């Protein structure tokens, strides 16, 4: 069983939901990112997503776009993020997921990347512009080396898409909680419940929801419906303003 699966299983036993913060690696620096990871773990995060900057983040809103631009300006690359993960692993065993667009991975060489990522200590990958239909090689390599492949579902997903994505995902399934890009406005209501129910009816895999969750109240509502809550833009924004993220995460932890 993977470290991510184990985390969800342990939480379930305790009747708790996963808190999954997202930060952009290299914003403002890789050293800072390492410190944030330790802070987030201490403040109650269960799994951490590290964004890898890309020149054209087409699934992201302005907050993460700007963080990505800053990280690139500071010379952050996929290679350096892998080195960072290796360093973090000396201090922490928290499950780590890289979130990046497909081209940097493709350019690295998918096979070489998967091996390197696993040996550095990466537990799973989220690639928003890679759908299972195009991921045959990636999935095969990831299974071989035990890297979790987390694919996304959206409010627009049809039954057919739900089954396909559920089947291709390991670790958990990422439910995109809004029809839109990261950081946009969320509304938690009956339709979200219905959609999560229909995903749950085809799979037993955990489902974590993210995109647009910006405060403890929203996190608490989403936690009632999903197995995990992913928070990105809200944290990235705090970091960009030079504010502390510990108190925010503690508050969200309490709410989840």
């Amino acid at each position: 069983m993977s470290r991510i699966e184990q985390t969800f299983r342990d939480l379930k036993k305790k009747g708790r939901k996963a808190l999954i913060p997202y930060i952009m690696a290299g914003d403002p620096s890789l050293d800072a990112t390492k410190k944030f990871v330790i802070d987030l773990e201490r403040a109650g995060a269960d799994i951490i997503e590290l964004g890898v900057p890309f020149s054209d983040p087409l699934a992201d809103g302005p907050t993460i776009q700007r963080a990505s631009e800053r990280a690139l300006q500071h010379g952050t690359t996929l290679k350096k993020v892998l080195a960072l993960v290796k360093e973090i692993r000396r201090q922490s065993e928290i499950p780590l997921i890289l979130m990046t667009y497909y081209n940097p991975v493709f350019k690295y060489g998918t096979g070489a990347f998967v091996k390197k990522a696993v040996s550095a200590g990466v537990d799973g990958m989220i690639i928003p512009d890679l759908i299972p239909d195009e991921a045959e090689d990636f999935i095969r390599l990831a299974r071989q080396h035990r890297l979790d492949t987390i694919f996304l579902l959206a409010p627009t997903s049809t039954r057919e898409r739900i089954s396909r994505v559920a089947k291709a995902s390991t670790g958990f399934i990422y439910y995109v909680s809004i029809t839109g890009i990261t950081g946009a406005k969320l509304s938690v209501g009956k339709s979200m419940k219905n959609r999560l129910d229909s995903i749950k009816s085809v799979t037993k895999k955990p489902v974590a929801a993210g995109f647009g969750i910006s405060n403890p109240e929203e996190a608490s509502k989403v936690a009632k419906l999903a197995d995990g809550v992913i928070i990105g833009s809200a944290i990235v924004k705090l970091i960009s303003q030079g504010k502390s993220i510990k108190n925010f995460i503690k508050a969200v932890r309490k709410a989840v």
Partner: protein
Amino acid sequence: MNKKSDKVPDSKGHFGQYGGRFVPETLMPALIELEKAYRKYRKNKDFLQELKILQKDFVGRPTPLYFAGNLSEYLGGPKIYLKREDLCHTGAHKINNAIAQALLARRMGKTRLIAETGAGQHGVATATGAALAGLECEIYMGSEDIRRQALNVFRMKLLGAKVTEVTLGSKTLKDAINEALRDWTTNVRNTHYVLGTVFGPHPYPVMVRDFQSIIGIEAREQIMKAENRLPDCLIACVGGGSNSIGLFHAFLKDNIRMIGVEAGGHGIKSGKHAARFAGGSLGIFQGCKSYLLQDRDGNVLGTHSVSAGLDYASVGPEHCYLRDLRKIEYTYATDREALRAFELLSKIEGIIPALESAHAITEAVKVASSMNKKSIIIVNLSGRGDKDVQEVARIKGIRL
């Protein structure tokens, strides 16, 4: 051999190793819906009839195939014909695709069109299609392009479209596409994204090609009528690749030399260009796998061309496939060469070409010297140069 795997593109839009669908999951249902609608309407009599009438009475098709006698004589070599897409309503071939997609969107029950634009020609064409079909319209355009194609920005507004400036990244076409994709991801339920070239996720590369292939179908008939034989060489500029594939497609089974001309900018060594085949490598960008100008880490590089319509980091996947098969050759023309051709055609033929099309003219001038008088070249004159007059004056240091 399995018949299904022989089809190009395959059912998921792969031209060999190129193409496919690399998009957020949110868009998948819309792409599947679009593909189904397209497959249905491309054979639907009503739709085809409606399109045919508009191509004739609204766009002004068929566009002439003009024997450029002065240019031919000046070069002293082959007969040069120009396919006059510059005479299309709104001034470029872009309208062929935009009108067809607007009609398709209306039949799909969409109420809003969005599009990216570089040169502004596709934006104007989409705004025109939206006005015609009675749909709301928003166009995304990089601030650098807004500056150099100011005339087209005003035209779009006159046509009732909202023009949204994109100030992120390199502030050109690729950033406008990112914004359009973000808008589509957010408003996908009522909005159709009118992609302007043979690029992006399946079914766009096939669909746009089919809507543009009328260029070559007409040109083939016209040259047979004029010369009673097929041409020896076809030349077109390649941005995303829609006017070129539009001309070439009807001739692919013939043994004809075909040349696609990319933007050489300040030259390949300078790094300031948009010649994907000369300077790029395989990558995945904005929906498909293709040749891409990228750095070692897979980030997309900034591009440069004097012509906004060719100033893009990647190229249609079918072009990569046809290049591998050696059906089409690719070369480039620099800014300086294109500006020279822009002036040459204006003075010698009385036709001011779009700066994009001037890249194709450059290549015609180059190959003419190695061809005899009996040879025939068709150059696709993809658009007219009115939109570029101001920018060319600026470059020449002339204040208007």
